[in-house]
């Protein structure tokens, strides 16, 4: 029975963790239109830095790595988020000013491959192909948690962190900043002609998304205790893309749905299934094919995702419900109900209008 709950809470952990990762990619791609094909690189940096600052000094251990500060949770996690943001500054400086859309995507995927090779081969950085291991489990010692209890505990911690990050992301996407991001996504030339410094906003979006990537990566290494290059093959970026395309680009609730379907049910649940007799590892391949087919079906029949981006409606201030002659102007019921308030926004799904 304990084993069952271990599985369940492992799935819960990946659900919330990929929700965080999906929110990070969504603000870059879904809200601002930056096709970040290097996203998994930011996740990896978050994971490695979180691990390396959590571990003690590497002198005298079998591993080689930088930092080794013995930093406690959650500071180790924040360090991972900040490290991913620093990488974003470098990547943005190289790419965002000069490149757009598909060219930007090609350069980003190239940078991701370069980063992968550097970390894989330069052993002194993060222990090369072996990666980091024996990373301390946060609070496990203080709370005297067994390994099963730790899984339950950390899945819950990740759930709380993801909810806080969801609240923060919702605040950003509903703000004028989120609106400017979407203006840049729709037409950067028009946004620029309206006085918006496109690079500055794209950089902001990259920083926010990278912070989420770094935190998501940091949680993975704190949960599993290890992280190596097999965990972040450049193709992994497309799993996160699959999460947001299936769930709904530009919609935070859709992202949770995408994380549930793609990451939890299609990728991690089958890992717990017994092998098909005589065909060891076949399930993994079937899995990859199902995700690919699902992605194609979604892009063909429902490109807006299961829960599409929301169309923002604004309730008007009371005075605005009168026209210039002082006559009442028709307004939707929710607007009338909220007329006394200065401002509130309601949303309907774009797909519902079709």
């Amino acid at each position, binding site marked *: 029975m304990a084993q069952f709950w271990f599985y369940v809470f492992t799935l819960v952990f990946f659900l919330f963790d990929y929700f965080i990762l999906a929110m990070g990619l969504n603000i870059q791609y879904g809200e601002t239109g930056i096709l970040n094909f290097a996203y998994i690189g930011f996740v990896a940096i978050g994971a490695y830095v979180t691990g390396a600052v959590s571990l003690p000094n590497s002198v005298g251990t079998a591993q080689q790595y930088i930092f080794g500060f013995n930093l406690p949770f959650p500071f180790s996690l924040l360090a991972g988020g900040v490290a991913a943001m620093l990488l974003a500054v470098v990547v943005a400086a190289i790419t965002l000013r000069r490149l757009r859309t598909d060219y930007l995507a090609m350069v980003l995927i190239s940078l991701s491959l370069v980063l992968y090779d550097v970390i894989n081969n330069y052993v002194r950085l993060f222990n090369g192909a072996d990666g980091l291991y024996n990373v301390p489990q946060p609070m496990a010692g203080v709370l005297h948690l067994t390994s099963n209890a730790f899984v339950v505990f950390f899945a819950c911690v990740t759930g709380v962190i993801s909810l806080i990050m969801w609240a*923060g992301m919702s*605040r*950003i996407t509903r*703000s*004028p*900043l989120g*609106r*400017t991001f*979407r*203006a840049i*996504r*729709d*037409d950067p*030339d*028009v*946004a*620029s*002609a*309206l*006085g*918006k*410094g*496109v690079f500055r*906003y794209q950089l*902001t979006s990259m920083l*926010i998304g990278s912070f989420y990537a770094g935190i998501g990566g940091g949680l993975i290494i704190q949960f599993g205790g290890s992280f190596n290059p097999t965990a972040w093959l450049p193709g992994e970026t497309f799993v996160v893309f699959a999460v947001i395309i299936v769930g709904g680009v530009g919609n935070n609730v859709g992202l949770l749905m995408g994380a549930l379907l793609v990451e939890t049910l299609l990728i991690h649940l089958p890992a717990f299934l017994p092998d098909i007799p005589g065909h060891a590892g076949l399930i993994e391949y079937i899995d990859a094919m199902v995700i690919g087919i699902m992605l194609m079906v979604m892009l063909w029949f429902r490109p807006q995702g299961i829960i599409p*981006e929301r*169309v*923002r*409606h*604004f309730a*008007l*201030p009371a*005075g*605005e419900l009168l*026209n*210039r002659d002082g006559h009442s*102007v028709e307004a939707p019921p929710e607007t009338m109900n909220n007329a006394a308030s*200065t*401002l509130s926004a309601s949303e309907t799904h*774009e797909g519902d*209008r079709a």
Partner: protein
Amino acid sequence: MMTYQDTTTPAGGDGPILRCEGITKAFGGVNAVNGATFDVPRNKITALIGPNGAGKTTVVNLLSGAMKIDSGKVQLGTTDITNMERYKIARLGLMRTFQLSRELGGLTVLENLLVAPKVQAGESLFNIFFRPRLLKREERQNLERAVEILRTYGLFDLRDNLARELSGGQKKLLEISRGVMASPSLFLLDEPMAGVNPALIDKIGGYILDMKAQGVTVLMIEHNLNVVERICDNVVVLAEGRTLATGTMSELRENKEVVTAYLGEIINAGPSH
């Protein structure tokens, strides 16, 4: 009363609001703009006319920073804006529309206007998390102004529609109203009447006159000479990337060079609209 002018922009002063001195632009050896020189007088409506390929849209692209100038100088008020970044030029009060309407399709009509104010406190992460009252106040002010403009331009009932769902004429109106929302000192309109029905042409002409009455200077590319005659105070004629002549429409009709290069073909082709 709807207010247009943003008095905080440095385009103030008494002389011409825009001075364009000998600007050139070549594309692969072809001189699209070849020394265009003209002034745009303050608080007037100036038309930029000329045959197809004269370089009118390229001039607008150069003035607004969408393209780099090869040589020459552009001054907005007292500020040299030659090859300044596009968004910085916009922040100085120079707004533009595009020849083919470019709406922000994934935003609603209302959001298209709300995004327009050049600098918003709500675009700062610090303010989003730590100054919610400021955001709310600013958003309310912007919302009130946007609603007023939408009513003026007849788009109020479409406020919650996605901009990509609008018709061609409605997109033209949206683009102009979005520019107005940004409080321009100088508004460059690239063929605002192109592809719209005669009734809407009259309406747009009225809106442009209304802008002028509120202190906005307009420079518009227009092929419809009836409209130019009716609403424009001043006309600049471009041909082969050069300024051929400037003056009022009646003065230009007497100018043989202008008649030969441009007006002749229009007159021979019959009245437009």
